[in-house]
């Protein structure tokens, strides 16, 4: 692909070594078995697969939290290996993540304002006033208000918390945002609001999304390209229309058959209902 590629993964493998009990023998879980794909700037790649197929593992590798066991990761053409190199501020700022569970992803002892200014404090040279102003702006951009700045996370609903998590991810002006099932813990009506917010933000900041989900209707609404994973392997990878209209792999076909309400009309109706 000659387009503007922001991220490229080559043959990523991730193994977890665990021990069963104190004297048990070591167990090796191969969570990713050689994953390759690339991401085009400003587009959305949806990653679909059932629970336990390695989606979150992939998200952690791409966000540079965990290293891959094998394989290469290139961000804007630059190879990155967090086992060897210390992460620079610049690199840190390029990729950010929003987690699935908005109740677990915010520190209960941290005020919203501190949640948003901490990344700025650690990664930029802004002074306190600038950080504060910037965080306030970001709060407004995600649909909250300056009055929420001094509150603790437990005072917010799930949807509001997810907005805070999105704001935290965006304060560093990342180029790539990994969304690990960002709406699957939310009510349907709130899901639609968050998806719309994500679409607006993508346009405003020219963001690239890697959107992890197991909900095909959501994927169909938001994705440009779709990657289907099955037990740590990519079994389908192509444009949204190609994958949805002409699934190649048996697993994809079963997946689509198991989700009867994945047609466009149904989703539009659902989203419309959620908006009113």
């Amino acid at each position, binding site marked *: 692909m000659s387009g503007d590629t922001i991220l490229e993964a080559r043959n990523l493998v991730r193994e977890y070594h665990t021990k069963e009990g104190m004297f048990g023998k070591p167990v090796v879980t191969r969570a990713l078995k050689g994953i390759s794909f690339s991401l085009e700037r400003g587009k959305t790649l949806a990653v679909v697969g059932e629970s336990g197929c390695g989606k979150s593992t992939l998200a952690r590798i791409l966000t540079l*939290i965990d290293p891959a066991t094998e394989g290469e990761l290139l961000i804007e053409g630059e190879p990155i290996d967090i086992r060897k190199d210390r992460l620079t*501020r610049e690199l840190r700022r390029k990729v950010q993540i929003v987690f699935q569970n908005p109740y*677990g*992803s915010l520190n209960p002892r941290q005020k919203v304002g501190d949640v948003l200014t901490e990344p700025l404090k650690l990664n930029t040279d802004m002074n306190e006033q600038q950080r504060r102003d910037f965080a306030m702006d970001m709060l407004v951009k995600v649909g909250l208000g300056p009055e929420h700045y001094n509150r603790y996370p437990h005072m917010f609903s799930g949807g509001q918390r997810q907005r805070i998590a999105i704001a935290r991810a965006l304060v560093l002006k990342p180029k790539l945002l990994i969304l690990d099932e960002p709406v699957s813990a939310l009510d349907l009506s709130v899901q639609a609001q968050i998806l719309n917010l994500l679409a607006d933000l993508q346009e405003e900041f020219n963001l690239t999304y890697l959107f992890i989900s197991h909900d095909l209707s959501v994927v169909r609404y938001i994705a440009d390209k779709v990657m289907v994973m099955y037990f740590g392997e990519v079994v389908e990878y192509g444009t949204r229309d190609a994958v949805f209209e002409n699934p190649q792999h048996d697993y994809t076909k079963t997946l689509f058959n198991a989700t009867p309400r994945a047609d466009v009309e149904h989703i539009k109706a659902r989203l419309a209902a959620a908006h009113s």
Partner: protein
Amino acid sequence: MSDASIDVKAETRLDLLVNFWKHFRTNKGAVIGLYFFIGLILVAVFAPLIAPHSPIEQYRDAFKAPPVWMEGGSWKFILGTDAVGRDILSRIIFGSRYSLFVGVVVVSIALSVGIFLGLLAGTFRGWVDTIIMRIMDVILAFPSLLLALVLVAILGPTLVNAMIAIAIVQQPYYVRLTRASVISEMSREYVMAARVSGVRTPRLMFKTVLPNCMAPLIVQAALSFSTAILDAAALGFLGVGAQPPTPEWGTMLAESREFILNAPWIMAFPGFAILITVVAINLIGDGLRDALDPKLKRS
């Protein structure tokens, strides 16, 4: 229905405190314990003003004088005098200083070192964890008072050494508690999110994770405060803690044990002082646990 419209009053640290007090207040025993403890602190602070006599002055005309309500007692020595004519009430009042001092020092040492080691073990795991926890297991393998006794025997019998020994003996509980909380917190998503925000390990340990591990530690601190007082009294009783004529409660017990039959009050009052103080602090600890950490509540 917009989820952004839910509006709640801003909450400050003060509100959190008020909220905590509301929970704490429902536990009557804890409140009584707290009042007693506050009273004890006042007594300790103002001991020279409250005490009717000096704690070490010997009245040679009044050996083993009985307390005021017994035959032969007088208002001069309300709780009587001991075998060498010292006023027991004054000694108990001054003794509260030592007990509180022991509690504060032991808990401070055990808590700060315990938190530090527990954070290290829980954060780095691997061999750091193994070394720290095996040492703690070794400490736990000895009966605590026996170990404290051995340590004091090595260090020398003074109150300060007794405190150090007791702090070492109590260490493992804090380390284990901190480590367990740290491990469970470390796997939560907010910690991962903090890492992605660029928070490095030291800040992650102390600023992100530690505040979320404090509730069980505060409870443990309250409960081990009383254990420390008890252990210090026990060491004093065995003659390896505070040395005479220090009016330490355990030491007072030890000095008086040969008069238990003909002058039982000499032994009874310091014993009561220890008992009531320990019970009061344990009641506070229970109340703290219920108010801070609903998960630990006995159902």
